């Protein structure tokens, strides 16, 4: 796949209460933005098991977005803080596997921030388009003699 025809495949875990509603708002307000993020709705960013992120990368995602309520606004008090701590530690771990930190992004998007969701999707897509495909899926299963 050459660089010009490369369309980043991105997976976005969005919390039910803020970011998913924010993404919905971007849609109902007919904002246009990069369609590269495949959205998965979760009840809270605290529900995003690091295994989900690793699996997304292994199955061919070029980037992963986790988006939730702003600090202090979590529907479950502190799920987003847990997500923040996991994101920081997981970013370090991913770098040890050769996955650049730009490919794993955490954002706070509230239910009223449709425009911010639009901007996050556009920015992330462009950044990863520049980085190129990750191609982790074909990695390591074989023995690379």
């Amino acid at each position, binding site marked *: 796949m050459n660089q010009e025809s490369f369309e980043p495949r991105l997976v976005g875990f969005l919390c039910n209460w803020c970011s998913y509603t924010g993404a919905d708002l971007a849609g109902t307000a007919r904002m246009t933005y990069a369609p590269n993020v495949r959205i998965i709705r979760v009840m809270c960013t605290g529900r995003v098991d690091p295994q989900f992120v*690793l699996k997304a990368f292994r199955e061919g995602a070029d980037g992963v977005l986790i988006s939730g309520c702003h600090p202090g606004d979590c529907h479950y008090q502190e799920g987003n803080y847990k997500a*923040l*701590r*996991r994101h920081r*530690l997981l970013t*370090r771990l991913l770098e*040890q*596997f050769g996955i650049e930190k730009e490919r794993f992004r955490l954002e706070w998007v509230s239910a009223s921030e449709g425009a911010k969701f639009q901007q996050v999707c556009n920015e992330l897509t462009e950044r990863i388009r520049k980085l190129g495909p990750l191609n*982790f899926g074909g990695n390591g299963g074989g023995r690379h003699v």
Partner: protein
Amino acid sequence: MSDPKPKVAFYWCSSCGGCEESIVDLGEDILKVVAAVDIVYWPVALDFKKKDLEAMPDGSIAVAFINGSIRMSEQEEMAHLLRRKSQLVVAHGACAHLGGVPGLANFWNKETIFRTVYHTTVSTANPGGAEPQPETVLDGKTLTLPEFWDTVCPLNAVIEVDYYLPGCAPHRDLIMSAVTAILEGKLPPKGSVLAPNTSCCDECSRNKTKPEKLVIKEIKRPYEVIFDPEKCFLAQGLICMGPATRGGCGERCIEGNMPCRGCMGPTDQVHDQGAKFLSALASILEANDEKEIDRIVGSIDDPAGTFYRFSLPSSLLRRKKMEAVR
């Protein structure tokens, strides 16, 4: 006439020899095992050759215990041969089960490992720059060596495995109950790990000292502190893999006042031990401020190597991205 005693084979692949030791550690119980079975192949202890194994009819061995991970072509070949000759194959120990400590080499590849081992270490004197080759022609004759791979695999990546005996090395009680179950034909469903499906914390003698709300403000490394011999290691700020690790190990590390390193692998519900431990550890760090989080997270030395100490080749990502290895 055929021997009525079931035939058993032991083999080692990429391992340290500790699993062989775990058989000898059965102590007097090994006499019961030897009385009940006929050991037909065990390179570390008995003088049988590969051709003896090849001469046995397919499926004539009741059970083969294979330890060690798969790192070279020879190990894959032997694993296939033993699979063909055996009715049951048991992955014996953490390396065969998950990839084990040798699996940490998956953060590198053949080229970088050879560069270090044959060229750049201070103690290496290799003026000709020689490296092992799969084939070398010498005086018109071809000499061969096994091929060294870029990636270490657990046993189940190359052959079908019937049961897993976890641990580094497996506890003698687990080995004895596995052998007894095989001899009596009372085996759990194929593919089972022959150990309890509960976490290490579940049986830990220090569990009762765990505070109601477990939080960590500072991560400490073992050399930095004198361990309290009774208190939960996580409550002391020490990385203990117990919450993400299967129990049944006999708590030998804990009894020796050392935190769990995770050799038993994850429980059945978990795919990726390292990710699950990362999740648990991050959630108990006491910090909500980004700078403070970065400081604590930054103080963890080598998170991937620590969380995947025994399970990298069987983790979701399995290895470092090949193109990123330098």
